[in-house]
């Protein structure tokens, strides 16, 4: 943050320095990017972080194994469900228990609905960043319906806090199946409309094709994951590699592209929305009867040891590294957040491009700043 008080905004080589953010709409939050420019060409990019750093890892060290899960809703707040799922699974791994079948299916359904809602928000915001305002309203029409389903079942729209060690907190809302079927049908119909609005648009294609390229080797080296890495041809879907909560029983494709540019990242997410709908379709009529929560003790204590759990959020691989010393709260907890690693590739993608491309790159990286800062 000390960068703000530097005085040399024109360097000796004739480059000038501009600060984008922390309150710029295209950074989707409080991300501050310092860019060195030669004319319009980017020479160097430096993200300055920490504006929303709350030290969630430190906080978790003094919370119980039941409570620390809910703090993670505030990391990637658009994938709050999936964050909670990762923590619940990590605790379950320590307790050596598994959620009952009904809870597992509910978890998958909720996670895929979250992913759908997240990708819709991203799609609307990407259009907005690149100068098209209409997609935003279309995306929010469907997203609002999904958020309402969440509200009916979990009682909250964004930070749902629905996952607990051993299952989910309470059973599904009676109208859940009916409403979910309706929204999935609607999304499938409207996806064609989405494509018509943005995908084939000449201005959109020119702003994204060949922009922000990253090769397969670099994507792996930078630790990219999720749609960002899959657009460069890196197979990294945690749901396929290390299945959890019964994802191995569900039929779906890992969406891969080889373009490596903004357009490829866009297409991967568009095709992932179809996969989300397919997964929900397979499960919505087959929710097993039974308990929605396994029995656990009131005060959870994990045995001494280390537990690592990764899940696929809407943005990539979230890892929870939990170190236990046998007490009632974690000794150390580390969140390997997808956005943090994806952001580290930003400079590699942006250098050599134009300043306008930076906005396209940030939009297709789908950055959520509280997840970077934690």
């Amino acid at each position, binding site marked *: *943050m*000390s960068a703000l008080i530097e005085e040399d905004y024109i360097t000796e080589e004739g480059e000038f320095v501009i600060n984008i953010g922390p309150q710029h709409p295209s950074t989707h939050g409080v991300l501050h990017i310092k860019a060195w420019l030669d004319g319009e060409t980017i020479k160097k990019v430096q993200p300055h*972080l*920490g504006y929303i*750093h709350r*030290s969630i*890892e*430190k*906080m978790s060290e*003094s*919370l119980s194994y039941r409570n620390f899960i809910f703090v993670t809703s505030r990391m990637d707040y658009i994938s709050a469900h999936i964050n909670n799922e990762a923590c619940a699974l990590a605790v379950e*791994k320590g307790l050596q228990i598994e959620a009952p079948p009904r809870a597992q299916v509910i978890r998958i359904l909720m996670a895929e609905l979250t992913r759908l809602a997240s990708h819709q928000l991203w799609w609307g915001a990407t259009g907005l960043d690149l100068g098209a305002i209409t997609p935003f309203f279309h995306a929010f029409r469907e997203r609002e319906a999904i958020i309402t389903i969440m509200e009916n079942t979990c009682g909250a729209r964004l930070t749902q806090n629905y996952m607990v060690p051993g299952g989910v907190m309470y059973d599904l809302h009676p109208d859940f199946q009916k409403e979910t079927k309706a929204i999935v049908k609607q999304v499938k119909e409207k996806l064609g409309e989405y494509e018509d609005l943005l995908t084939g648009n000449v201005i959109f294609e020119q702003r994204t094709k060949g922009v922000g390229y990253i090769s397969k080797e*670099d994507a*792996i*080296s*930078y*630790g990219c*994951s999720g749609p960002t890495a899959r657009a460069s041809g*890196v*197979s*990294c879907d945690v749901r396929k*590699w290390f299945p959890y909560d019964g994802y191995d029983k569900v039929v779906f494709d890992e969406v891969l592209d080889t373009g490596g540019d903004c357009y490829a990242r866009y297409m991967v997410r568009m095709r992932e929305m179809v996969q989300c709908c397919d997964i929900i379709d397979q499960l919505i009529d087959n929710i097993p009867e039974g308990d929605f929560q396994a029995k656990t003790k009131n005060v959870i204590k994990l045995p001494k*040891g*280390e*537990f*690592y759990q*990764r899940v696929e959020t809407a943005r990539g*691989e979230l*890892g929870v*590294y939990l*170190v236990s010393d046998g007490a009632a709260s974690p*000794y*150390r907890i*580390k969140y*390997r957040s997808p956005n*943090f*690693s994806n*952001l*580290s*590739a930003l400079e*590699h993608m942006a250098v050599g491009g134009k300043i306008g491309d930076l906005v396209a790159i940030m939009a297709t990286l789908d950055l959520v700043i509280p997840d970077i*800062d934690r």
Partner: protein
Amino acid sequence: MTNEELKQRFTELLPGAIYDETGEFLNVIINSEVLLPFVKELRNNDTLSFDYLFCLTCVDWKDHLMMVYHLLSKDHKHTVVVKAKITDITNPEIESVSSIWKTANFHEREVYDLFGVKFLNHPDLRRIFLDEDWPGHPLRKNYVDENMIEI
């Protein structure tokens, strides 16, 4: 490769390594001085090729600091956790691995910021979240702040 085969290879590379298989992954515990040549071999050897560093962090065990590197090979689909022990807790130092995995650049800056571990030969070692003049390193167990409250 299975864990047994991996262990055999690691012993050839580094005879003094200690193994821990109680958890989910194979853990290799080494001294911080030998870290860089060891992980360089892990990355560049074709039969090992650990190309994906998916988690890099540090744990404060009060009498020592433990750097933890989670490594995955995309080609061979095997995982290993390399742990490097830093015994000097007042002035902790370790070689940077950012020349091997580019993602380490940001992750090491985070560890430097929150644990105070100094990474030698790091290209851009600055605090990543907190101000440069922030006193102390919050994730260390002996960190005190007058504004901290008990939850």
